[in-house]
């Protein structure tokens, strides 16, 4: 029988640095909750808003797969591998931090805030050579269907990471249903509602709610109101 966990949007940790407002689904920075450390290999799900002209100065990462998904506006990235890029709403960015990387990221606009999700997944191999990639997604490919945006396979749809994980985005109209079939035994799925309202396994999820489901090979998503959501399938043991 499927096991589930529900994380209402309001239960997330919050950081407000003035220029940065961040909601943490799992313990991060100054937010510590031993009951909210990770969902399987999914360690960080931060819902960030950065004021115009502001951003994160140079800082390091290692041994983590870091995925950024802009929801509104653009984010400028510069790293120690000399990658300079802007990712906008509709793009996805991935960094394998591996043996170590420094980077900085700033709002690409001087006035309008940028909103983005930053997601960290534990890698399945330590100390890889750092790498960076980004991809522009076709939003039409997720209207009333699931669009794979990440996998473990370089030749598959979306970006790839060093973990047995698959991410899908969906943008569905009210009244529809869709089924998600898990790709690997031992995996679970963390669902994050970007906006709208859906129901899974009897649990209603609204904007920014999170929901984990595991010990199942598939589940159905009912669309209660027009909704955009992110499915993150990750190993529960790693």
């Amino acid at each position, binding site marked *: 029988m499927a096991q589930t966990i529900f994380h209402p949007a309001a239960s997330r940790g919050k950081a407000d640095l003035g220029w940065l407002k961040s909601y943490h689904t799992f313990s*991060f920075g100054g937010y*510590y909750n031993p009951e909210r450390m990770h969902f399987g290999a999914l360690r960080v799900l931060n819902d960030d808003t950065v004021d115009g002209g502001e951003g994160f100065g140079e*800082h390091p990462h290692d*041994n983590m797969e870091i995925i950024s998904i802009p929801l509104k506006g653009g984010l400028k990235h510069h790293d120690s591998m000399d990658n300079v890029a802007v990712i906008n709403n509709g793009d996805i960015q991935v960094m394998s931090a*591996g*043996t170590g990387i420094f980077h900085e990221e700033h709002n690409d606009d001087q006035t309008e805030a940028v909103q983005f999700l930053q997601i*960290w997944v*534990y890698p399945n191999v330590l*100390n890889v050579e750092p790498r960076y990639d980004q991809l522009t997604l076709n939003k039409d490919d997720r209207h009333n269907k699931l669009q794979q945006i990440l996998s473990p396979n370089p030749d598959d749809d979306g970006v790839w990471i060093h973990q047995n994980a698959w991410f899908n985005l969906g943008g569905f109209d009210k009244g529809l249903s869709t089924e998600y079939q898990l790709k690997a035994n031992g995996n679970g799925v963390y669902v994050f509602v970007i906006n709208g309202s859906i129901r899974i396994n009897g649990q209603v999820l609204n904007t920014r709610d999170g929901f984990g489901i595991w010990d199942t090979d598939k589940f159905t998503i009912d669309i209660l109101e027009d909704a955009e959501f992110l499915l993150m399938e990750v190993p529960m043991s790693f």
Partner: protein
Amino acid sequence: MQNIEILIIGKHPDIMKTILRLINNKPGWNGTAVFTADEAIEKGNAIPFNIVLLGAGLNVTESKQIQEHYKVPVIQHYGGGSGLLYAEIYQALNIQP
């Protein structure tokens, strides 16, 4: 109250500096950084560490050597001095912020 003594071992000098700075910014925490398993074991003879963090770049043999030597929690540190560092230590030592 005694300081919490934290040993961090890793290969990236700039990341080690960041981790050390973050640890030492916490009142009551004292960090020591080294780059090899041999140094880690040698330091342990002088300082009674409460926890040992394995940073990036260590090979399996080095990590195992350190894990076998220390009787205190030895954990893999992920992220490189990022937003995970404090939570990893709180959890391993079962302490609250």
